[in-house]
């Protein structure tokens, strides 16, 4: 996994980008297919690559030849295709990791290096199949473009979960080299590395230390750790997403935004429009909408049931553990509460509220942040026993555990990221001459030096690769 962020990886990426612009449109697609296949093979192993191609071929054949027909039997085939597409994900997520070590070691080790990325390409395949069946996609593209779309190497390991209406048509148009794409792409990659190496990994060292020695810590340390963790996840997945978007931008592709200043949400409902957006929109379109549509005759009860089903399944997607079920129930309950009690106030114009008193906004941001931090406790603990330990320690006296070096770097990174998000959220750009060449150079120099001086570059891996 470390190889993804190595100098060699970046070297391969830049060589690919160079070659990409030298080739004609058709050959570019094949270059991306071959490179994506090689990339997935080296990280996940030959069996997973074969499975990925098998699901791609199967879903393509059904979509191209059967789902476009207007016959009643097509609906059964449509549901069957979705079930088949999910089989590898269900097997590797819920069966493979529980197989006896002897079975895994004997032959599978040569075939499966790590069960990575299955969720993300499965979601994209299911999205494509649904879009073809629902006639959202006007025509089915060629197999080469479809394979390129599903296996596109920057998206393989942790998304964002791309959509046919955003990314597929971009593959079909020829991209000309533009210096602004190079500039934006490099800047996003640097910001992504900053979020990962300085923000996420520095916080990670502190939090890992606490969880390794859980019995020795006070209540105040537990609360502090809980409040710090959302920034680690934001740095980790948000940083990864920016690197992915940056690499794609170098080739002229605009990949979906996955985070939109998430800690400036005024309600939990709004938070979920800003956090892990590609997953939430996928769940909304392909799970929540069908379920709530079929339950619509039950009115508000049907909607609430659909919210609970969506969030519990979203939780269980991380892993089949009770802590994730609790996570889902927690968020579904918050959303239901907002829907039933606070809906009226939420419906009032968000833009108008944004210009309201700063302290009212600050209080709202803090409440949403704290609620999210509490929910992330379920994600961070190993199991329910550890969760009980954390809760039992909340009332324990004692001083706050301080790790001066890592916390100093972490808070430096938090300040930078909060300021950056603040500027974007409240459109303060005119006050900061971001287009001025001196500002651009200063931004890049700051990022490069911060990553090299304060970053934790060795031993880096991403949290969401596990899902």
């Amino acid at each position, binding site marked *: 996994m470390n190889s993804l962020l190595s100098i060699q990886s970046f070297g391969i990426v830049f060589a690919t980008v160079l070659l990409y612009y030298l080739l004609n449109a058709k050959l570019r697609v094949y270059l991306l297919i071959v490179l994506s296949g090689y990339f997935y093979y080296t990280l996940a192993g030959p069996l997973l690559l074969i499975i990925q191609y098998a699901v791609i071929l199967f879903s393509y054949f059904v979509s191209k030849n059967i789902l476009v027909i207007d016959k009643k039997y097509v609906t059964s085939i449509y549901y069957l295709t979705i079930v088949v597409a999910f089989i590898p994900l269900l097997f590797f997520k819920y069966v493979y990791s529980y197989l006896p070590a002897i079975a895994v070691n004997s032959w599978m080790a040569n075939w499966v290096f790590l069960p990575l990325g299955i969720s993300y390409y499965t979601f994209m395949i299911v999205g494509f199949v649904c879009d073809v069946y629902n006639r959202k996609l006007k025509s089915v593209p060629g197999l080469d473009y479809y394979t390129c779309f599903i296996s596109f190497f920057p998206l393989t390991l942790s998304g964002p979960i791309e959509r046919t209406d955003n990314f597929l048509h971009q593959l079909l148009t020829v991209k000309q080299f533009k210096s602004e794409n190079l500039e934006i792409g490099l800047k996003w990659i640097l910001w992504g590395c900053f979020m990962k190496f300085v923000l996420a990994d520095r916080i990670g060292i502190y939090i890992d230390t606490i969880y390794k020695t859980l019995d020795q810590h006070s209540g105040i340390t537990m609360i502090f750790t809980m409040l710090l963790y959302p920034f680690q996840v934001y740095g980790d997945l948000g940083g990864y997403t920016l690197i992915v978007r940056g690499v794609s931008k170098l080739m002229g592709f605009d990949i979906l935004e996955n985070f939109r200043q998430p800690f400036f949400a005024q309600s939990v409902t709004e938070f979920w429009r800003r956090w892990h957006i590609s997953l939430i929109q996928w769940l909304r379109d392909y799970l929540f909408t069908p379920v709530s*549509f079929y339950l619509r005759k039950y009115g508000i009860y049907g*909607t609430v049931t659909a919210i609970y089903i969506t969030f519990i399944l979203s939780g269980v997607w991380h892993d089949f553990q009770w802590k994730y079920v609790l996570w889902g129930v927690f968020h579904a309950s918050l959303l239901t509460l907002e829907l039933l009690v606070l809906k*009226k106030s939420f*419906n009032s*114009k968000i*833009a108008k509220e944004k210009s309201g008193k700063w302290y009212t906004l600050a209080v709202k941001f803090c409440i949403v942040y704290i609620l999210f931090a509490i929910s992330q406790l379920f994600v961070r603990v190993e199991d329910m026993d550890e969760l009980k330990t954390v809760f039992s320690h909340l009332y324990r006296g004692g001083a706050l555990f301080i790790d001066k070096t890592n916390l100093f770097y972490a808070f430096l990174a938090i300040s930078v990221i909060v300021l950056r998000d603040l500027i974007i959220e409240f459109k303060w750009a005119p006050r900061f001459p971001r287009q001025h060449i001196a500002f651009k150079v200063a931004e890049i120099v700051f990022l490069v030096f911060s990553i090299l001086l304060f970053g934790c570059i060795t031993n880096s891996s991403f949290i969401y690769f596990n899902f």
Partner: protein
Amino acid sequence: MEKEKIVNILNEIFSEVFQRDIVVTDSLTANDVDGWDSINHMFLITAIEKKFNIKFSLRDLNRMPDVGALIELILAKVQ
């Protein structure tokens, strides 16, 4: 049923769901109306089905990029 009558009924439904006066136009989309999220969308669909005594399919939901397309669908179903 005439398009004008459908638009008037939709104005009432939209105003009721979003709890403020909304005038619908053909080009109106979910991005233009504050609070038009997936939950309110389902409330809209249910209210429209009830008012016009029609039934949408899940496929229909994907054929409504804007209010104009929604009106076309309603017209096709009521005639």
